[in-house]
C-alpha cells in the first residue's frame, strides 16, 4: 500500500502529470474495516468539524472547490495519493498554481499549522473518505513526522 502510493507520488513528481486521479480505490476491506473501526469513525466525526471550521469556505461543502481558484478535493491524486505530501500542504500551505483535469487553480493555500496533529489527521481522514473518496486514514504520527521536518 505505502509502496503503491510512493510510486504514484514519484510518478507525479516526474512532470507531465494528468492530475486526473488514476488512483485505484482502496481495497474494499479497508472501507469495511473503517466502518467497523470505532477509532476511524471517531476521527471522521472530529474531522468533519475541522473541515467545517477551517476548509469549507474555499473547498466548499461538496469538496468541489471553486473554479480557477481553489482546487477540488474529489478523487484527485493530491488527496488520495501520498499522505505526507497532503499533510505538508495543510501544515505549510501551497503557494504554486496547480492543474487538475485541465483546469488551473491559482489561489494560495495558507498554512494551517495552528491545527494540532490530531486535528490534521482527523480532517485529512475525513477528506480522504468523503465526497466520493475512499482511502486509508491519516495517523497522528504521520502528521507529526511531516511537522517535525518543517523549517522552524
Amino acid at each position, binding site marked *: 500500500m505505502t509502496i503503491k502510493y510512493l510510486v504514484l507520488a514519484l510518478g507525479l513528481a516526474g512532470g507531465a502529470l494528468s492530475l486526473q486521479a488514476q488512483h485505484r480505490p482502496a481495497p474494499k476491506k479497508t472501507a469495511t474495516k473503517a466502518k467497523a473501526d470505532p477509532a476511524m469513525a471517531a476521527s471522521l466525526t472530529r474531522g468533519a468539524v475541522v473541515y467545517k471550521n477551517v476548509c469549507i*469556505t474555499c473547498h466548499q461543502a461538496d469538496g468541489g472547490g471553486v473554479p480557477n481558484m481553489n482546487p477540488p478535493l474529489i478523487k484527485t491524486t493530491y488527496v488520495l495519493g501520498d499522505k505526507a505530501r497532503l499533510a505538508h500542504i495543510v501544515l505549510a500551505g501551497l503557494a504554486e498554481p496547480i492543474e487538475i483535469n485541465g483546469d488551473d487553480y491559482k489561489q*494560495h493555500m495558507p498554512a494551517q499549522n495552528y491545527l494540532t496533529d490530531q486535528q490534521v489527521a482527523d480532517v485529512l481522514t475525513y477528506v480522504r473518505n468523503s465526497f466520493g473518496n475512499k482511502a486509508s486514514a491519516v495517523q497522528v504520527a504521520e502528521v507529526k513526522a511531516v511537522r517535525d521536518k518543517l523549517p522552524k
Partner: protein
Amino acid sequence: MRSFSSRYLLAVPALAGSLALVASRPTAPTVAPDPNNAGLKLPAGFGALVVAETGGKARHLAVTPQGVIYVKLNKVKDGKGILELRPQANGKATVAGGFGNYGGTGMYEKNGYLYASSDHAVYRYKLDAKGGVTNPTSPELLVRGLKVGSQHESKSIVLDNADNLYVNIGAYANACQEQDRTRGSKGIPNCPILDSAGGIWQFKASQANQTYKTGTRYATGLRNVVGLDWNQQDNELFVMQHGRDQLSDNWPTLFNEKQSAQLPAECMYAVKQGDNAGWPYLYYDPQQKKKMLGPEYGGDGKKEATGNYIDPAAAYPAHMAPDGLLFYTGNMFPAKYRNGAFIAFHGSWNRAPEPQAGYYVVFQPFVNGKPSGQWEVFADNFSGSAAKTASGRADHRPCGLAQGPDGSLYVSDDSKGTIYRIVYNAKK
C-alpha cells in the same frame, strides 16, 4: 453607441426619402428570442437568445458598430485568446475565427480600435470598416509589465473620451496580511502592495510601450475591480470592487459564519483622480452603512475606519463578485434603463457554509450620473436553478457585458462560454 444612433437620427431629415424608411423600421424585430429565453428569467417584454456557444472561458466582450462580437478568453483555446463572432441574420452569431495567443479578461472597443488585456499587458488592434481586425498577429503593445499574483489577476480596461486608458490592477492578497488568508495574521502597515496594485492605473490609449513609470496611479485602495465603465453623463469612471473575504475564517473570535457571509458589501465607486477607497484598512458594512476598520488593522466589527477614504456610490450583497459593469446608452430598452447601470454578478463562493448568491445581472437605476433608487435583479437563472445557486455549482456564470449597435445587451459566461443576447420586443 450613442453617437451611432444619433448620427442616423440627424441623417433622417437630410435624406428624407429612402432613409426615413430605414429609420422608421424598428431596429429589433428580426431578432427573435429563443423559445425558452435562453433559460433566463427576465422582466416582462424582454427576451433572450443564445448568440453562440464558444466553449471557452468567456470573460469580457465587445461589440463593434457593425455587430461583430469579440470575446476575450481567460485561457487560450486552440491557440486563440480572442474569438471573433460574426453576426447572422437571425440575431445569433458564428465563431468565425480568433487570434491573440494569450489569456486574459479585458475587451473594449472604441473609435475603430479593439483593446484587449492579458493578465500583465494591454494590446490594441485596428478595426476596419466592417469591424474586422486588420492586425491580428501584430497588435500594438500599449502597456506591459503589470503586476500579477495568484489571485485577482484580471486586468480589466475601459477608455474615457480624452484618449485615456484605465486598467485595474488587482491586489494579489485578501487583506494585505503578513501571511495571506491566514488565521490571525496581522495587516502590514502602509500596505506595500498598493505601490503597484490594488487600484486603477491610467495610461494613454494610443501610446505604445507604456509601463508603471509612464502611467499614473489614478485611484488606490481598491482590492480588485473586474467590472468598470466610463459614465458618459458625468464623465466619470465607475468601478465595482470585489470586497474582502474570510472575516470569520481568519478572525473567528470577532465574526461568525453568518456575519462573514454578509460582510462586507460589494461596492460601486465613482472614482476621481487621487481617490482612495481604503483597502486593505477598511471594509464597508452595508447594514451599518459605515466604513469599518479591518480586523487586520485593529478592527473588531465595531470600530469605524478613520482617514480620507471615499464612500461607495452604491452597495450590494457580499461576495457576489461583480465582474461586469455597463452603462446602458441604447434606445432599444424602455426609458428607465437609459444611462443606468447593468452589473454582472459572477456569483459567490465566500459565503460557505451559508448558501451562495449572485449568478445574475442586476440593473441599478441612475439619475444624472448618480445611482438613484433600489437596484433590481434584471436577468436571473444563469445558474440553472435555485439549488445550483445555493450550492455554487452554477451552470453558467455571467461575467462580461456589452451593448450592441441596436441596443441589445450581450452577456458572456466564463463557465461554459455561452454568449447571451437580451432584447426588448414589447411596445414601448
